[in-house]
């Protein structure tokens, strides 16, 4: 009975060891992949600044305020 317990413990150790071998490089690999979405976001921000696109858009989005319309009965 005691022997079986020890064997059971060993199996778990082997499983945990295997998982560690598989999981650790996976954690490292995640950060090596090129973050394409983040790069696009950063590129967009820089291009907007260099070409001053955001300011032009903001200017276009703020047309002179229309005269207030009052509805009198």
């Amino acid at each position: 009975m005691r022997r079986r317990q020890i064997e059971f413990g060993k199996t778990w150790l082997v499983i945990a060891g295997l998982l560690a071998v598989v999981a650790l490089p996976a954690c490292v690999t995640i950060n090596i992949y090129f973050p394409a979405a983040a790069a696009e976001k950063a590129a967009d921000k820089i291009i907007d600044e260099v070409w001053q696109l955001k300011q032009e858009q903001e200017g276009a989005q703020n047309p002179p305020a229309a005269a207030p319309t009052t509805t009198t009965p």
Partner: protein
Amino acid sequence: MKKLLLTGLLSMTLMGGVGLLQAAPDLEANTPVITAIKTSMQTRHAQLQSYYGSGAIGLTQDGYIAVKDASAVPLSQRGGLAGLVKDENSDRARLYKEIAAANGHPEWQGEIQSTFAGRWIDKAQAGWFYQKEGAWVKK
């Protein structure tokens, strides 16, 4: 013993989850060097803008600019234009390199450059020229 192992496994799973969450942060693009390059490019753009519009220069497929039609520029301005294009491209090369370095991955330079290449063209004004499969295309 079993409990200990289970706890270990659980914490490893948690760590893995945290790793995944941290996998999509923003790219660092605000170092003093990058800001200086941006300012330099912004100033130059005021001079380049009309050349883009007249088709004298265009955007290349690889994230740079090139003289497309020197005859669209008076002879006296051609030397100046060539200098502007050269300076712009050296700033762009430095920009791609610095962003990769600022994020601790110098090997990303090429991918950052190709990301920019696509975005410059996407954001270009109508009427500007860009290179597609080696040929100039009007946007």
